[in-house]
């Protein structure tokens, strides 16, 4: 049921236009700061959610964006992996507040990039099946979604951002970081 609710969600529900914000880059301190819990119904959270979606939309290749990436140390992120070829299960565009991974399994290693770390990519092992719980901005409904493959990876990457962690903090080893040669 929650999966359907998340799939049917769109930023139109927020009722405020999103603003395109500047995406900060490491070593900006906010990216290594543990985000605070938010009130998903608070107007500033709703505005932040709209801003995250708007900023994701204008950023080429961007499949997710977390509040610390726009300079706010808070546990809010948006995801939309719809267009990505590695996506199996997908829930369209959605924003989650105070999200947590509640179940995870089937670790797989894959190469990740990040708008906030534009010069590197890295091999990171993450669960390929997850159950994630969080609150929708605006209504504050608690939702639980089950997903896999690329959406599972994107969710874990964004939840890490909200905990002040970059993919660099999960690199598989000393030779698991690569200089990026092409930029999206």
């Amino acid at each position: 049921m929650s999966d359907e609710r998340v799939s049917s969600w769109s930023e139109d529900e927020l009722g405020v236009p999103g603003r395109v914000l500047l995406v900060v880059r490491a070593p900006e301190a906010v990216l290594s700061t543990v985000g605070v819990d938010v009130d998903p119904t608070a107007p500033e959270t709703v505005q932040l959610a709209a801003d995250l979606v708007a900023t994701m939309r204008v950023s080429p290749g961007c499949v997710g964006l977390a509040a610390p990436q726009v300079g706010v140390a808070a546990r809010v992120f948006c995801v939309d992996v719809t267009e990505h070829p590695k996506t199996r299960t997908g829930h369209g565009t959605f924003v989650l507040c105070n999200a947590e991974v509640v179940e995870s399994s089937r670790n797989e290693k894959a190469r990740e990039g990040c708008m906030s770390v534009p010069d590197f990519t890295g091999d990171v092992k993450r669960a390929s099946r997850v159950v994630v719980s969080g609150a929708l901005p605006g209504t504050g409904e608690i939702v639980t979604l089950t997903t896999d493959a690329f959406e599972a990876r994107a969710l874990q990457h964004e939840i890490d951002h909200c905990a002040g962690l970059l993919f660099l903090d999960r690199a598989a080893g000393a030779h698991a970081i690569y200089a990026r040669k092409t930029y999206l």
Partner: protein
Amino acid sequence: MTSSPSASATLHAITVLGHDRPGIIAETTGCLADLGLNLEDSTMTLLRGHFAMMLICAGSPGAAEIETALAPLAQDGTLTVTVREVPVEQPGFSDGTPWVLTVHGGDRAGIVSSVVTEVARVGGNITDLTTRLAGELYLLIAEIDLPASVDVTAVEAAIRSVASDLGVGATLRPAETDEL
């Protein structure tokens, strides 16, 4: 190039450093093959755009003979080649556990030395290390063997403390191996 050398084969450490261009590895390994040397372990990377290769090879030719064979590589002055005989090293016994350390933050002097000092203080052995600088971002990733007796929580706290003093972040986590 993969056959085992005889037990009596001498080992040589060879380094090739300098301006990168296509063909350096082909030329180097071609010379070594012509001498009948076996490549054992090798590593090559680009460091700030500079070609950097180290390898250990086994075989009967001496250092002087290898140097002479590799001399054309260094002829135009853009590459430096060194050859040195090295003893056979027996891998040390380790009852330790493998860890991966990431440190990243704004570039400043002393990040690497401060952090690895904390690793050395508890007898931790760094088995692989990469550092990169991109713009303002300095990144260190080290693979570390920590002795079984070490209190890993305390080591991580010590590393985080010195990292914090330098204004950088540090993460220490187990190097997981999935046996298939």
